[in-house]
């Protein structure tokens, strides 16, 4: 097993090198921009452009240099942490001594998908021969009574199908206090003492048993490791949008991940799932308080994962990111709108981190992770501002013309100066920073036969990469507008709820797309129109941006179609290794989903009439307290007409064994009366 701790040398120098490269390149690019802008002295607007440019460039320069580091290490075949030719994925799976809990927190999710994923992961762990060291927990915070009933039934069926009784557990929490972090924390507080480590999954996660066992082995080998995060690969969706995103993240993600792992070393980050955590360390250091004040910036911490990683590190435990561990999968939203909705939640969580930056005794890199999380969303309004200001400067110059003489007496005119060399250099640098990481990944993939074939071969890979670039160019302005709106609304005090993420291939209707994107399209058309009218020479520069905005509606509708995604697949676009050669766990997930596809799931009303469901539900209920008057009333109404109850009443009724028994007794009496 890989020994991480004594080999993560020179963290200071690695970070120093990264800082030098990022700051140096940002300073150089900003100087170039200053030269281009300030040939005839700098106006206020130009000064603002320069400032925003510096911040924005620094942001992308960090990713660029991480990609460079990733490229160099990958070419040399070196591990990003130990810098040796080794990998955590090498060698036989270890024989484990410690016990690990696999946790899947869920909240009103697609029940079939949850249990199909869990069953696939369970079988995969079983195949390693080390199942005895693992227990699996479904931690439900579900509030929808129909889904609650379905979860219980599906859990029971899964236990029977897998022979997993006494190893696969289900727990339902009556109130989802603290959201996902609270859900996990509740388990840690009640059950955590029995397990050395816990693997946290998301509702759409699937992991190979081999990877899980290796993670547990790494925790045994590295006793100061608090968290080991894997690189979760996006897979399994079939809409065009999702296939594009899966391809992009699969092709470009690993390189960046290796580069980041190189400079993060033992101060890595945690992404909330597909990671292993040392339970006692987590309990001792990761209890999250509520932030003072109200949401969106106060209250419960939404993006808890970054904060938990920072707290774990503060407690003296290392947080590692090991991208070489494969067999870690997640699913992504299938269309632009669902993707943006998820980002809205993340934006609020990440902006909350601005309030945690000053927390006592946090490691500098942990603070940087949080600052980067903030900047991930703040970068969008900055880019927007930069683009607007640039357009404004150009239009202003076009309208006012060049001022040959300043107010007052001037002996000589100020001739307009252009710096074509610096302009071209700036363009080249910016393009390099944006596109070279993609080219590095392409070179790496094309360079290895197995890798190349896993993406469908050189031809398919190259044309997919070109299509990906076009799609990225069109989508980026829309996401910029979404993110900008999120940042402004959050700062204006608007909070977001905690809705479950749609996890199926959802097509977007024209009406829904129009509702979401009309403003974006109007902004694009107006922007393009003004530039066309006043400074037509500048139109080419803003064309990719305004085109993306103007085409947002058809782009969203078209890209959300499964048919379009599959047609592109048939045409040889966006193939990924998960499509060309799915791993065993992904294959098992597919089989499980197929098995469950036609199976109907029970609902609340059936609990009252189906004694098998009722018995199962009663067996799962811890609450045997007497029911109050309101509950008895609900029970009697439910016995007459179950659908007459509001969701909150149904949930309360399901939560009380006494009230439920009363409802069933009443129903039985009514049946007997009718029979009499």
């Amino acid at each position, binding site marked *: 097993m890989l020994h991480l701790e004594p080999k993560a040398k020179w963290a200071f120098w690695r970070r120093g090198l990264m800082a030098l490269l990022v700051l140096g390149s940002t300073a150089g690019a900003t100087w170039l921009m200053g030269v281009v802008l300030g040939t005839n002295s700098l106006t206020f607007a130009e000064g603002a452009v320069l400032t925003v440019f510096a911040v924005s460039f620094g942001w992308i320069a960090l990713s660029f240099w991480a990609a460079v580091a990733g490229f160099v290490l990958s070419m040399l075949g070196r591990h990003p942490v130990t810098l040796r030719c080794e990998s955590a994925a090498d060698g036989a799976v270890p024989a484990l001594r410690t016990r690990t809990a696999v946790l899947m927190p869920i909240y009103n999710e697609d029940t079939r998908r949850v249990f199909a994923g869990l069953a696939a992961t369970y079988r995969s762990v079983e195949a390693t021969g080390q199942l005895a060291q693992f*227990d699996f*927990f479904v931690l439900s915070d579900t509030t929808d009574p129909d889904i609650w009933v379905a979860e219980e039934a599906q859990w*029971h069926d899964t*236990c*029977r199908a897998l*022979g997993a*009784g*006494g190893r696969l*557990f289900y*727990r339902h929490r009556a109130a989802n206090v603290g959201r996902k972090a609270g859900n996990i*924390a509740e388990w*840690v*507080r*009640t*059950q*955590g*003492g*029995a*397990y050395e480590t816990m693997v946290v999954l998301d509702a759409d996660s699937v992991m190979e048993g081999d990877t899980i066992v290796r993670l547990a082995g790494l925790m045994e080998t590295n006793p100061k490791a608090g968290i080991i995060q894997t690189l979760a690969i996006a897979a399994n969706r079939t809409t065009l949008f999702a296939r594009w995103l899966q391809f992009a993240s699969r092709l470009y993600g690993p390189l960046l991940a290796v580069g980041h792992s190189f400079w993060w070393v033992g101060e890595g980050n945690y992404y909330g799932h597909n990671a292993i955590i040392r*339970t*006692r360390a*987590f*309990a*001792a*250091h*990761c*209890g*999250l*308080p509520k*932030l003072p004040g109200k949401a969106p910036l106060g209250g419960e911490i939404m993006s808890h994962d970054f*904060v938990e990683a920072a*707290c774990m590190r*503060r407690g003296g435990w290392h947080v590692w990111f090991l991208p070489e561990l494969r067999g870690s999968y997640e699913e992504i939203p299938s269309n632009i709108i669902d993707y943006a909705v998820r980002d809205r939640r993340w934006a609020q969580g990440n902006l909350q981190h601005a309030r*945690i930056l000053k*927390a*006592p005794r946090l490691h500098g890199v942990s603070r940087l992770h949080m600052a980067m999380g903030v900047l991930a969303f703040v970068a969008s309004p900055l880019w927007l501002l930069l683009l607007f200001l640039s357009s404004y400067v150009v239009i202003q110059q076009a309208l006012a013309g060049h001022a040959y003489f300043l107010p007052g007496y001037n002996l000589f005119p100020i001739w307009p100066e252009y710096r074509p060399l610096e302009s071209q250099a700036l363009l080249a640098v910016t393009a390099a920073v944006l596109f070279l990481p993609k080219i590095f990944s392409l070179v790496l993939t094309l360079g290895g036969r197995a890798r190349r074939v896993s993406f469908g071969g050189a031809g398919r890979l190259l044309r997919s990469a070109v299509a990906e670039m076009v799609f990225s160019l069109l989508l980026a302005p829309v996401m910029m507008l979404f993110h900008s709106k999120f940042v402004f609304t959050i700062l204006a005090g608007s909070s977001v709820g905690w809705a479950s993420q749609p996890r199926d291939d959802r097509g977007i209707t024209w009406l829904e797309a129009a509702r979401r994107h009309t403003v974006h399209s109007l902004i694009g058309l107006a922007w393009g129109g003004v530039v066309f009218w006043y400074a037509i020479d500048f139109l080419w520069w803003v064309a990719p941006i305004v085109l993306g905005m103007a085409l947002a509606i058809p782009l969203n509708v078209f890209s959300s179609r499964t048919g379009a995604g599959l047609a592109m697949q048939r045409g040889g676009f966006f193939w990924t290794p998960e499509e060309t050669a799915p791993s065993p766990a992904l294959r098992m997930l597919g089989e499980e989903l197929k098995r469950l596809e036609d199976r109907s799931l029970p609902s609340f009303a059936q609990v009252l009439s189906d*004694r*098998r469901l009722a*018995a*199962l539900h*009663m*067996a*799962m209920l811890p609450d045997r307290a007497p029911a109050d008057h309101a509950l008895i009333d609900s029970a009697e109404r439910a016995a007459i007409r179950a659908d007459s109850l509001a969701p909150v009443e149904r949930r309360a009724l399901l939560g009380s064994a006494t009230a439920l028994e009363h409802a069933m007794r009443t129903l*039985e009496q009514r049946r007997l009366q009718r029979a009499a």
Partner: protein
Amino acid sequence: MSPEDDLTPIPTIIAKRLAIAAERLLMAWGAFEADWQRRLVERITAAAAEAAAQPPRDADRAAREALDILLARWASALAEDAGPAPIDALRAAFLAIDGARCWPDQFLEARPGQDFRQDLRRALPRPLPAGAPLEMPEQPL
């Protein structure tokens, strides 16, 4: 059916009430065939007869208590290392395996067969494992 549960003659009126109560209680365990239903009702009736004959002659209660005793005995007979499973869990499992149709002879049986035990065990909804609490104090941020 075990020999210790011999049927005892009881007054007809009490037996009828008990039989109705026992039938209702047995419904919660699934739809037994008529023959098995009759035998089980007789068994519960016999176990409840003495209590039902006492004032206030509450047949429902007597039948329920008698069945509870029989069930507790059955749960003990089925018990594994971790002790007897809760009756609710046994009922859920018995219904899940369609025990009333597939294993009527095993219901309330003092020495349940191995095949039945295995089938039942597979369907038994297990509660969470015994608690292993950890302190998780809130951290300053």
